């Protein structure tokens, strides 16, 4: 049976289909194997083909002229080009069609080079036959091609940055310096994220702390008139799509306004205490507090979760800066692009894992960093249980590499370097301390190998394990038992301090982020990039970019670079007034769509939504700015109601049936 028998709906753009077929020699690439002349003669006989020609290089200027003239002379309304794959020259030939007055989308390219001459060079006859088959199929498809119009949308030249950590700040600063308006929305009452609390970052040369970096960026960002900062704020709604988002932001009450001079009187009278999350749980804070010294904004804040609203602070505040009746506010922002710099959470070991929570002598690396920080709770003095620890044991891969039932499978990338850095700080500060690094692999990649070598040089003791070590907490005594795999000995290390080198995890609110911004997550739970290797700072959703540890563990420097990279992507978008999108997108036939929602579930770009019609029934709607033309919905749609332009069933099915037409 022939393809005509398949019912094809929708009329062709003109009454009579007139197809031109152009077969390229591509020098010898095609003509060296395929008998081009034979293919052309074959094509001439196909139904609807009014002209078939060959040329040595169709892509060259004379080749293009030939097509242009033919289109006019033969009144062609479809063009088939049998040459190379569409990757390189489809745009070339689309331009040719356009210049000749045709819609550029009535072009069909058939790759007889990659698909036939290159792969079947040993058998020229069969290659020629295959080329004929391919041309016949292309003609069958071309018959039903439709003209399409490009779509465009306006771009609002502003960016939203979600997260005021180091990556978000880097993105914001770059975009602002590039001249774009930037809105930073930070959930916490202060900027700086984890980086601000990371302590010293190097062991020699000019000392640099995480705080220094944050301070530098905050100062620059704050002084830039293009930047608007919202702390203690959360994005609650995201509407629109690439180039044109409307964001609703909830501004949570801080209860303390900018009259606050950080005098601290309120803290003295506040009766409520809670563990200090800004010190990773070391020590306590009050319900009214300053998250950390020198934070921005340098202003006290009341944590409504713990505050009893007793009003004592209001009474003592000399500036009258406290207002317990402050209410939540809501603002909307109109932005073109969004950068998610939503960061990570440190892995929190459950109580009992490696003795965590059973003894003050077992702490996490984050807590150690706070203890060793000049601005930390002990002003940089390492004191545990009132004593200076002598034997300090780091246990690495806590919460990573599946070392415990609770742990993640992935490697957190930074922990080896970070803990060796702290080990060196300890050695520098307390040369008599004995530091053990109990590890699996030492993954100090790249230039960080230097840290590993330094640690060996400073007699940090490396203990390698295959089986997770055991930490036993006795009466005031902590022991680490480990099977040293490289000497095959069972070691017992009496420890004055055990430091659990905890990895990074996706933040707890990742699920909300995911549904709010319609971005995906990978198997590790972190936000998923458009392509792991080549699009590492873009999400699958157009106009939304990812920076810092939102996509996975990174060092501070890497986060800053990723921040700049995400900014570059946003800048590419924002530097345009309008964005044009290919019309090869999914379209919904509302007459057929029953609103079953299968397409919504499967769209990887969040481009489809269900819309309620006036009669109460639902239909799918595709946002063409978000649709990337992957075709997944078309394959899944049970009613053939959603189809992709240029790849509709009526175009593909005849092409498939043409296979059997011989």
């Amino acid at each position, binding site marked *: 049976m022939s393809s005509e028998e398949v019912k094809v709906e929708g009329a062709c753009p003109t009454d009579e289909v007139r197809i031109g077929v152009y077969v390229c020699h591509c020098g010898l690439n095609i003509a060296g194997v395929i008998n081009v002349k034979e293919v052309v003669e074959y094509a001439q006989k196909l139904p609807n083909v009014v002209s078939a020609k060959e040329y040595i290089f169709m892509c060259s200027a004379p080749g293009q002229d030939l097509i242009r003239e033919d289109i006019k002379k033969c009144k062609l309304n479809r063009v088939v080009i049998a040459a190379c794959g569409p990757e390189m020259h489809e745009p070339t030939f689309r331009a040719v069609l356009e210049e000749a007055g045709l819609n550029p989308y009535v072009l069909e390219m058939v790759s007889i080079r990659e698909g036939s001459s290159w792969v079947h060079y040993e058998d020229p006859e069969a290659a020629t036959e295959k080329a004929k088959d391919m041309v016949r199929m292309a003609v069958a498809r071309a018959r039903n091609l439709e003209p399409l119009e490009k779509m465009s949308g306006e771009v609002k030249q502003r960016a939203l940055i979600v997260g005021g950590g180091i990556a978000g700040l880097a993105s914001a600063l770059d975009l602002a310096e590039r001249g774009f308006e930037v809105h930073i929305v930070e959930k916490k009452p202060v900027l700086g994220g984890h980086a601000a609390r990371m302590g010293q970052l190097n062991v020699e040369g000019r000392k640099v702390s995480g705080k220094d970096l944050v301070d530098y960026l905050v100062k620059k960002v704050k002084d830039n008139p293009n930047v608007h900062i919202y702390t203690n704020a959360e994005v609650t709604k995201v509407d629109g799509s690439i180039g044109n988002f409307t964001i609703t932001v909830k501004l949570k009450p801080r209860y303390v306004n900018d009259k606050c001079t950080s005098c601290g009187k309120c803290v003295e009278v506040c009766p409520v205490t809670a563990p200090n999350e800004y010190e990773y749980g070391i020590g306590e804070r009050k319900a009214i507090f300053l998250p950390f010294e020198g934070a921005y904004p340098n202003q006290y804040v009341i944590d409504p979760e713990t505050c009893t609203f007793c009003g004592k602070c209001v009474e003592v505040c000399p500036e009258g800066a406290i207002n317990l009746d402050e209410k939540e506010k809501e603002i909307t922002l109109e932005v073109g692009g969004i950068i998610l710099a939503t960061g990570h959470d440190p892995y929190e070991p459950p109580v009992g894992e490696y003795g965590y929570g059973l003894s003050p002598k077992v702490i996490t690396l984050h807590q150690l960093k706070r203890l060793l920080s000049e601005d930390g709770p002990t002003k940089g003095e390492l004191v545990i249980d009132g004593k200076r620890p002598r034997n300090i044991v780091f246990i690495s891969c806590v919460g990573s590499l599946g070392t415990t039932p609770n742990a993640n499978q992935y490697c957190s990338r930074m922990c080896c370097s970070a803990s060796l850095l702290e080990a060196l700080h300890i050695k520098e500060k307390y040369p008599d301390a004995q530091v053990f690094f109990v590890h699996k692999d030492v993954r100090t990649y790249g230039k960080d190998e230097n840290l590993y070598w330094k640690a060996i040089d400073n007699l940090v003791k490396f203990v390698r394990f295959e089986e997770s070590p055991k930490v036993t907490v006795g009466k005031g005594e902590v022991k680490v038992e480990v099977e040293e795999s490289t000497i095959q000995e069972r070691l017992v290390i009496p420890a004055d301090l055990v430091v659990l080198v905890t990895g990074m995890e996706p933040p707890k609110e990742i699920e909300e982020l995911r549904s709010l911004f319609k971005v995906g997550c990978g*198997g590790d739970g972190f936000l998923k990039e458009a392509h792991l290797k080549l699009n590492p700072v873009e999400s699958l959703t157009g106009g939304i970019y990812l920076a810092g540890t939102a996509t996975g563990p990174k060092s501070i420097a890497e986060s800053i670079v990723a921040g700049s990279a995400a900014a570059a992507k946003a800048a590419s978008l924002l530097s345009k007034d309008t964005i044009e999108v290919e019309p090869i997108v999914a379209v919904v036939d509302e007459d057929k769509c029953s609103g*079953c929602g299968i397409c919504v579930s499967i769209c990887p770009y969040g481009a489809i939504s269900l819309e309620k019609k006036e009669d109460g029934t639902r239909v799918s709607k595709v946002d063409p700015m978000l649709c990337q033309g992957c075709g997944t919905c078309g394959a*899944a*749609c049970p*009613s053939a109601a959603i189809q992709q332009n240029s790849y509709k069933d009526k175009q593909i099915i005849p092409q498939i049936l043409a296979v*059997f037409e011989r």
Partner: protein
Amino acid sequence: MSKPKVALYWCASCGGCEEATVDLTERLFDLVEAVDIVFWPIAMDFKREDLEKMEDGSIDIAIINGGIRFEEHEEMVKLLRRKSKIVIAYGSCAHLGGIPGLANAYPREEILKFAYEEAPTVINQDRVRPMKKTTVDGMEFELPDFLEYLKPLDEVIDVDYYIPGCPPTPDLTWEAVSKLLSGEIPPKGHVFGSDKSLCHECPLNETKPDEIKLEELKRPHQVVLDRSKCYLTQGVLCMGPVTRGGCEALCIKGGMPCTGCFGPLEGVYNQGAKALSFLASVIDIEDEEKYREMLEKLGFDPIGWFFRYSLAKGMIYRKKGDGE
């Protein structure tokens, strides 16, 4: 003006479609009033000769149910085609092959062997099988031969309209017939029923979330269905999304998920494949091993689930159906 002449005939079917005609109940009288039934072997005594005697094109509407499995079917429908102006494929079997079409999963020889030799209820030591020509007591009998495959009606003759369903609902039948009688002639090839999938008219469609993610599949007998919630979201295969509406979701209302008897929508070339594809799209299991385990637990039967009515009607399959 004389009343329109109507013929009814059945091929390979269970007879349910004929029952469905009777289910028109009192409307049957209106029908009989309105038309002149000239051929209906199951209800009245008509013979082939009677039909042959009629003039070509003298019947206005021929309503045929059942698929084509015997030579006899083939001959009769060809005859009916010649005599009729309009041919309607009535019911799933005529439309898509239906339940008898499931036999196409086996070759003819295997079917006969099972039916006449191996089925547990059969006692046939001599392995006698029906023959095309048999001599009994010196008399020669001729039987219509059993064809290689079952074919839907439109693979044997040209069909003008389809009334889908297993069986078609009386309302739909009435709607179709009255439409034709009133002269409201739809384009050739029209399938009566809705242009949208069953979900559109399903009372539970409202309850479906925007995104469907299934972590497990179940068969209806393995679960107590919540009748106020979309069955699909409860992990039960409902063919609703991939099936033409028009039945008013009778099964759904009766507490059973749709099995797909109304066939695919316009533009869907293969109902079963599409069903498989959409279901695969909403299953949210990453682990391959877990997937396999689930299918095993389920007693996975893709033909029975997805191709229950449409196995005989595959796009690629049709080519093979000719015995090529």
